[in-house]
């Protein structure tokens, strides 16, 4: 188990930044804050350059300049209107691009979501021939009743069914939480593997 420390500069950067971020587990400190700010600065610069070369430059140089697709000028003008929010007397104009996006989002959802969700509803029509299917059937009904807020939960039947629905929801949330915890540990394990095997060079 003799380590062979890496000479790769990129790996050293990764390792130092990882350790700097993990120092927060002890307590907030200047090393952590330096690493955090370096990350923010890098990410901001990265995404600015990425967006410039993937959206702005192709749109202006290729699509409008070379291909003569001038209708994109309208889209650019619409997009630029969002900056009017910085002019207090004309800030209302910024609502137009936002309205466009809300309209697009609504249209997209209405166009593409029903087909996907109808299959989900169909799949809930299960034959009651196994314990798993019975649990699914009961769970769907009870959870739906829980969300019928217009039904009086004081009614013992409705209240009882809704209570079962609440338990189903709590189990689902518990499952989601448990999975989230395991996921975070997986992230840590990946970092530990990088530090131990790639950076410090212990034999895996």
């Amino acid at each position, binding site marked *: 188990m003799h380590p062979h420390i890496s000479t790769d500069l990129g790996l050293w950067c990764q390792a130092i930044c990882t350790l700097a971020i993990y120092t927060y587990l002890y307590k907030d400190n200047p090393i952590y804050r330096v690493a955090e700010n370096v990350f923010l600065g890098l990410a901001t610069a990265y995404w600015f350059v990425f967006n410039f070369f993937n959206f702005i430059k192709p749109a202006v140089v290729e699509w409008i300049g070379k291909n003569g697709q001038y209708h994109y000028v309208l889209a650019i003008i619409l997009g630029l209107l969002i900056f009017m929010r910085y002019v207090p007397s004309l800030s209302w104009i910024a609502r137009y691009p936002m309205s466009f996006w809300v309209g697009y989002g609504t249209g997209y959802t209405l166009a593409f979501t029903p087909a996907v969700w109808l*299959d989900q509803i169909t799949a809930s029509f299960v034959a009651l021939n196994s314990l798993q299917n019975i649990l699914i059937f009961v769970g769907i009904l009870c959870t739906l009743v829980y969300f019928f807020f217009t039904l009086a939960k004081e009614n013992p039947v409705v209240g009882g069914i809704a209570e079962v629905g609440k338990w189903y929801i709590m189990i689902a949330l518990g499952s989601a939480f448990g999975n989230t915890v395991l996921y975070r540990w997986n992230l840590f394990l990946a970092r530990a*593997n990088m530090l*131990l095997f790639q950076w410090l060079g212990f034999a895996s």
Partner: protein
Amino acid sequence: MKIDRRLLYLVAVVLVAVTVFFPLGLPVSVSKLAVQTYDAIQDLPDNSVVFIAPMYDPGTAGELSPMLKAMLYQCMERKYRIILGNTGWTLGAGLAHTIITPIAQEFNYVYGTDYIELGSKPGGAIWLQSAKADLPGAAIVDYNNNSLGQYPLMQAVPRLTQEYVAAALVLDCGTPGAPEWLAQITQGTSIKLIIGEIQMTVPDQMTFVQSGQYAGMIAGSRGCAEYEQLVGRPGAGLKSQDTMSVITLMITLFIVLGNIGYLTRKK
């Protein structure tokens, strides 16, 4: 009694270090879901074209890169033609490049004929819509900025539709991700959608497996360990299971102790 949380971190770090250096070799049984996922890929027609989408970034690479590696091994052993590319996850393309390059060399895959890397394309669901109508037109250039028209594989796959693509293998960790592939590309078609999912969102995506909208799912690192065994290429997924088992035990113990402490104090 109040326990300093840093003590818990220390215990966890020690446990991780011990299990990483001294594996326990705990058995990992293979679930029905892993077999279903393996079979869904294995049973594709010979010479199929599969689109593999690494829709992730370094934050989730710990879980998803081993899945991608195992998927690539299975696809190349079956001699499928592979289109590797994503939309909306720029860094995923770079991560996937480092994984596919040595595996393609191992299987003597020819770039442009047997596999191609499209890189990452902006646009998310909108890009997928464009690719459905004109894949080379939507992608324009490959990972290395070369024009796509020169590659036989791109000439053979003009559209991202069921006539040309047999399956979409999506490594999913957020938006855009598998639901966008389902809505835009695979819903109502014969294209099989098979996903690799991070542990955190497995419960959300499981409903799509049960409804048959996903043909299979590699569920988190545990699912990856099972899938690696089926592919016959034990990797990082399988290796992580000892540590994950010990960590799960530790967390359970802490939760029980915490609750005992809470109830005792309440009385």
